[in-house]
């Protein structure tokens, strides 16, 4: 087929990807955007298949069948609360795909079929121009090395992120030496890439890059947990895009470069947003533990004798006379699968003429936008989901704030207590509201390990218990009133 036609169709596919992401800038156009993007994918795949010359379709068909079935089942079965796990897995598969493509391209150019692992490690004599003449060849090998490196890090890093989110891995392990150990690993892997560029025929260098990068992915993500996961997922999302773009350089394929760089920037921007929302640098999230506070803050001192607990009926009585209520959800709402119960409570309040909105902190949950998806699943209109900067000025005019399963993102210490580990992190100023109801299992600290003075405030009521059960009881009491 005329290569110009192929390039032209790739351009059309690239445009459709761009329009697809543009559609995502508004909820109303998002579904159509996603379909345009899928259409672009279909075009790119079809024209590629038509363009392959000496083709043996068996491997392609087998791969598409297996991948299609696995992907389809995952997409249709996954619960909305488990979306972070799904995205983590998809990030990893994206990295794995780029990794294997780079390896396939490398061995294609080498033109060898090693029959054993031992033979694989033998250096192969290649023409100095095998990968391209002069600088082109150097850059081609460099792109292969870097794609392998980033793809492999993304693969194992994402698998660890998945197992942490799925709570298969509960402890945090790290390399002795932490960041220094990781840094040494990275430098060694980069050195192997450099060695490969000088000796393109050295298969052992390729094997070394793969091994080092796979381990680096493990060690980078294993020490990170809990509330830092949104940053990790966003960053791995970015890596998977960068790996795809690099694979585009290996193959000289324009649509891979366009799509890969869009994904890469998307992940990076989300990473940046998450870091700002936690007031931490990326390096701090990746390598540092949360800094220990200047002085040990004694939880008993803050809570002793000052915490007021309440029954669902008392909360219902308070809601009866309210005019404006803001619901602040956190990861605990996802854990308790309470999103539908929360919607029903909001319905009961709205039926009484109470204005209800939801205050969403950027890092609530385990991935960017996690809370929004859960509440959308419960059919909460997206106009009622209000982001932090817009909801904060309204708390002073709010009669009741219901905090369900959120903790650190409401901690006033972030605003008031200079020297506290979370000082400077933007929070939802729920303590400015006239009344605060916190639905929580106990007074246990959140991810930051800090007590929350909000719980001890005079206008705060604690409702202890399972989030879903408590919300259902409040709704029932309100409906009877």
């Amino acid at each position: 087929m005329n290569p110009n036609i192929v390039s032209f169709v790739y351009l059309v596919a690239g445009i459709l990807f761009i329009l697809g992401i543009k559609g995502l800038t508004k909820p109303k156009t998002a579904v159509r955007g996603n379909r345009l993007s899928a259409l672009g994918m279909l075009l790119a795949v079809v024209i590629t298949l038509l363009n392959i010359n000496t083709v043996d379709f068996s491997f392609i068909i087998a791969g598409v069948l297996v991948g299609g079935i696995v992907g389809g089942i995952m997409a249709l079965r996954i619960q909305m609360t488990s979306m972070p796990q799904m995205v983590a897995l998809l990030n990893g598969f994206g990295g794995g795909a780029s990794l294997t493509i780079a390896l396939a391209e490398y061995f294609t150019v080498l033109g060898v079929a090693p029959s054993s692992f031992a033979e694989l490690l033998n250096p192969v004599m290649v023409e100095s121009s095998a990968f391209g003449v002069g600088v082109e060849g150097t850059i081609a090998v460099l792109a292969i090395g870097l794609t392998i490196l980033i793809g492999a890090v993304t693969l194992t890093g994402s698998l660890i992120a998945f197992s942490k989110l799925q709570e298969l891995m509960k402890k945090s392990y790290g390399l002795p030496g932490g960041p220094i150990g990781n840094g040494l690993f990275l430098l060694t892997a980069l050195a192997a890439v450099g060695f490969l560029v000088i000796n393109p025929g050295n298969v052992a260098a390729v094997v070394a890059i793969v091994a080092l990068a796979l381990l680096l992915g493990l060690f980078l993500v294993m020490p990170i947990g809990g509330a830092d996961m949104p940053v990790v997922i966003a960053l791995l999302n970015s890596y998977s895009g960068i790996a795809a773009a690099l694979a585009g350089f290996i193959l000289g394929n324009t649509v891979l470069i366009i799509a890969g760089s869009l994904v890469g920037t998307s992940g990076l921007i989300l990473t940046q947003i998450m870091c700002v929302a936690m007031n931490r640098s990326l390096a701090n999230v990746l390598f540092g533990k949360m800094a220990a506070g200047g002085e040990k803050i004694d939880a008993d001192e803050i809570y002793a004798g000052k915490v007021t607990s309440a029954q669902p009926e008392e909360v219902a009585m308070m809601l009866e006379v309210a005019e404006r209520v803001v619901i602040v959800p956190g990861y605990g709402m996802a854990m308790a699968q309470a999103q539908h119960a929360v919607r029903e409570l909001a319905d009961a309040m709205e039926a009484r003429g109470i204005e209800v909105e939801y205050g969403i902190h950027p890092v609530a949950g385990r991935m960017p936008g996690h809370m929004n998806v859960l509440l959308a699943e419960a059919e909460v209109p997206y106009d009622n989901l209000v982001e932090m900067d817009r909801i904060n000025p309204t708390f002073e005019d709010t009669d009741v704030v219901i905090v369900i399963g959120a903790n650190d993102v409401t901690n006033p210490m972030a605003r008031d207590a200079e020297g506290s580990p979370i000082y400077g992190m933007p929070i939802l100023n729920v303590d400015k509201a006239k009344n605060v109801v916190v639905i929580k299992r106990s007074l246990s600290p959140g991810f930051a390990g800090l007590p929350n003075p909000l719980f001890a405030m005079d206008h705060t009521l604690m409702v202890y218990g399972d989030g879903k059960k408590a919300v259902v009881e409040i709704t029932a009491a309100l409906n009877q009133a």
Partner: protein
Amino acid sequence: MEILILLLALFVLSLFLGVELITKVPPTLHTPLMSGTNAVSGITLVGAMLAAGNEGSPMLVNVLGFIAVTLATINVVGGYLVTNRMLAMFKRK
């Protein structure tokens, strides 16, 4: 060499375009954005098919290609389907 420069130009311009586009996506849609971009990064399927289907290549290359096709297809099919599922929930009122 000229091709390489062209590819580099395409890469850099796409990065800038990406920044312009992504910063306009509202936080409400950040999760569908991530799964949707996952699907887009499944474009590696194109490269994977070239590796898997090339008859003249060593077996090792075809097997690597097969793995790549499988992983990329999971991204494409899983990514678009789950994004569509989520966005459908945002659409209704």
